[in-house]
């Protein structure tokens, strides 16, 4: 047990980082024990924005509960929705039409790009570079505009329904996305000049926050965190859903397992996502965008699980149904929670600044951790 204020008996300094702190990107509360500048212990205190989303979902119907998950990881809300829709479709054996699948994948990849762009900007801020934030937001804005036109919302799109998507794409969608692809391709190189290639950034991230592949797996890390250790973990490759098996893309790996490896995985994932969007945007099949489903959905008695790859890692939805109108029990496996768990292991013995940089590369979204 450590005190929340003051010093320990060994004379170490105990500092509360958060719940209001510029580097935590939300209401995360870290109690860190410091020996001078060196971090001895990091203890996350959670629950500041716990909204009991899982419990809430138990009183919502199978059509409704999907949209609550937009408020978990709000940066990849579309992908969360997709994961929830997948589990309902699995339970009811609904076959999503090809057009619906392709639109879902397109939106998911655009969401992933937007999320990674935001991460890149915020990451820059964490290590003291403010300008990348605005550059990243400029491109992210283009994605938000595309989303707004088709889905009606910019951040929590709520576009997915069991059986497909809610509405057909906007007539301008393809044109706008093509324009965006062109725009981002020119900007990614600019990002390299602005931040990635900067010697200070590389010095700050290389060899910092190192985690081995074995430890990463033991902590349950997923997404770019574990891929930066060279572990094959992309759900889109391992257990393809919504037609990911038909598109060509590479799973991005790095081997170092440090902050810079995580940084590079995310930067390269932007390129991969862009190539997926490029392959699909001019080949959206004709036909229905939504399967015909019953007005009231009831999952049969049993247990259902599905998982998707969000921008932060593996997002799992586990439902126990008693055959009623609402889920009997629901559990979300959010990537941020497990990634945060590894923070202490990654940063103990390094400097405060390293902790902030490492936290930046973990890409934590606090509502995703607290749920």
């Amino acid at each position, binding site marked *: 047990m450590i005190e929340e204020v003051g010093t320990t008996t060994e004379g170490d*300094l105990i*500092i509360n980082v958060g719940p209001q*702190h*510029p*580097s935590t990107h939300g209401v995360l509360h870290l109690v860190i024990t*410091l020996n001078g*500048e060196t971090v001895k212990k990091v203890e996350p205190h959670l629950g500041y924005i716990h909204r009991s989303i899982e419990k809430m979902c138990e009183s919502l119907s199978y059509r409704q509960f999907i949209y609550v998950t937009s408020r978990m990881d709000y940066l990849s809300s579309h992908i969360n929705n997709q994961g929830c829709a997948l589990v309902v479709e699995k339970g009811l054996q609904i076959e999503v039409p090809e057009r619906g699948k392709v639109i879902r994948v397109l939106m998911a990849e655009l969401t992933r790009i937007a999320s990674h762009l935001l991460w890149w900007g915020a990451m*820059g*801020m*964490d*290590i*003291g*570079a*403010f*300008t990348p*934030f*605005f*550059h990243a937001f*400029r491109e992210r804005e283009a994605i938000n505009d595309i989303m707004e036109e088709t889905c009606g919302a910019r951040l929590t799109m709520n576009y997915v329904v069991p059986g497909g998507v809610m509405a057909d794409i906007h007539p301008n969608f393809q044109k706008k996305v093509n324009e965006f692809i062109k725009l981002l391709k020119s900007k990614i190189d600019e990002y390299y000049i*602005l*931040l990635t290639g*900067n010697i*200070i*950034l590389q*010095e*700050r991230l290389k060899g910092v926050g190192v985690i081995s592949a074995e430890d990463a797996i033991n902590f349950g890390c997923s997404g770019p965190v574990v891929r930066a250790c060279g572990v094959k973990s992309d759900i889109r490759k391992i257990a393809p859903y919504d037609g990911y098996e038909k598109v060509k893309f590479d799973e991005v790996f790095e081997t170092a397992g440090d902050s810079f490896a995580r940084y590079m995985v995310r930067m390269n994932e932007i390129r991969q996502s862009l190539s997926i969007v490029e392959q699909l945007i001019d080949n959206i099949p004709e036909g229905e965008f939504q399967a015909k489903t019953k007005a009231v959905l009831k999952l049969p008695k049993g247990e259902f699980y599905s998982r998707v790859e969000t921008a932060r890692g593996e997002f799992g939805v586990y439902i126990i149904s008693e055959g009623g109108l609402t889920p009997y029990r629901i559990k979300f496996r959010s990537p941020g929670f497990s990634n945060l768990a590894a923070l202490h292991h990654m940063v103990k013995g390094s*400097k*405060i*600044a*390293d902790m*902030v940089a490492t936290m930046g590369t973990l890409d934590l979204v606090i509502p995703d951790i607290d749920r």
Partner: protein
Amino acid sequence: MFSLESLAHNIDLGLNNIFPPTVALLSEMVIIGVGVIALFAVLGLVLVFMERKVSAYMQIRKGPNRVGYQGFAQTAADTLKLVLKEGLTPDGADKFLFNLAPFIVMIVAMLLMAPIAFTKGFQIWDINIGVLYISAISSLSVIGILMAGWASNNKYSLIGAMRSGAQIVSYELSAGLAILAMVVLTGSLQISEIVASQQNGWWIFKGHIPAVISFIIFIIAVTAETNRAPFDMAEAESELTAGFHTEYSGMRFAFFFLAEYVNIFIVCAIGATLYFGGWMPFHVGTWEAFNHVMDFIPGVVWFFGKTFGLIFLIMWFRWTFPRLRIDQLLNLEWTYLLPISMFNLLLMTIIAINGWYF
């Protein structure tokens, strides 16, 4: 022809005619004091506005543009807000030191104004050890920062202040050695003589490569000394919220803020004086006609032009570079900058002794 030199001279004569010498000297001191405070206010307004605009255009936005022409009065409005704000003192703080710290930082910045030559003959105090005076006084501001960090009774402030102490003490060496290299070249510590020695060309052009190296080291060291990004370890907002001035609010915070900008101005003014000739117009050796044309531009314009050019450079650093880590920062100083600047000083001495400069 009107010049600031004759203005200063006439005021001096006039006052001495009316009053006895002691009273004249006292009233001159008052005039200078008021002048420095006014300059402080103007510099604060201009530099904060400049920083906001520079950062805005680097970040593809417009910056303040509502209050006054192009947002020029925004800083004044912000200052008004800060004046009206309550200056809180935290419960466990050492009240005396807590209140004293911003003034120390401020006074140090004011003292540094003294030997700066704005134009020919327009200088508050042409002390014969001007450069030494500046080096000595500028290192005093660390006392204010340490005091603020310690007295705040806040761990973030304490860590920020300790970092700042380590940083300023280390970079003081490089800055000093870089300046020393130029002193070796000019053979004088007096600011007016350093400027006069650049009559036929600025030292950055005349002094060969050692002068350029010295300039680069100087710019890095003073960026660190003024706690500016990428060396803003003392503030490091993503780590320590606001570092040593976390607990300050209202006007006392504004003092730290103002002192930071005035310090930037001062170090850039010194840089401009040592390497770019201060108020000396751009002269090229024996091109009489060209030099004569250049002389038509007043010295004040040259001085402020060069200084603001350097200030822009320092702002440019801040808005494009990530921050270093504290150990990397000290590493940079002790393993690279210090040996290089020592070697550079040696090189410069050889050049100066043999008269190899132009």
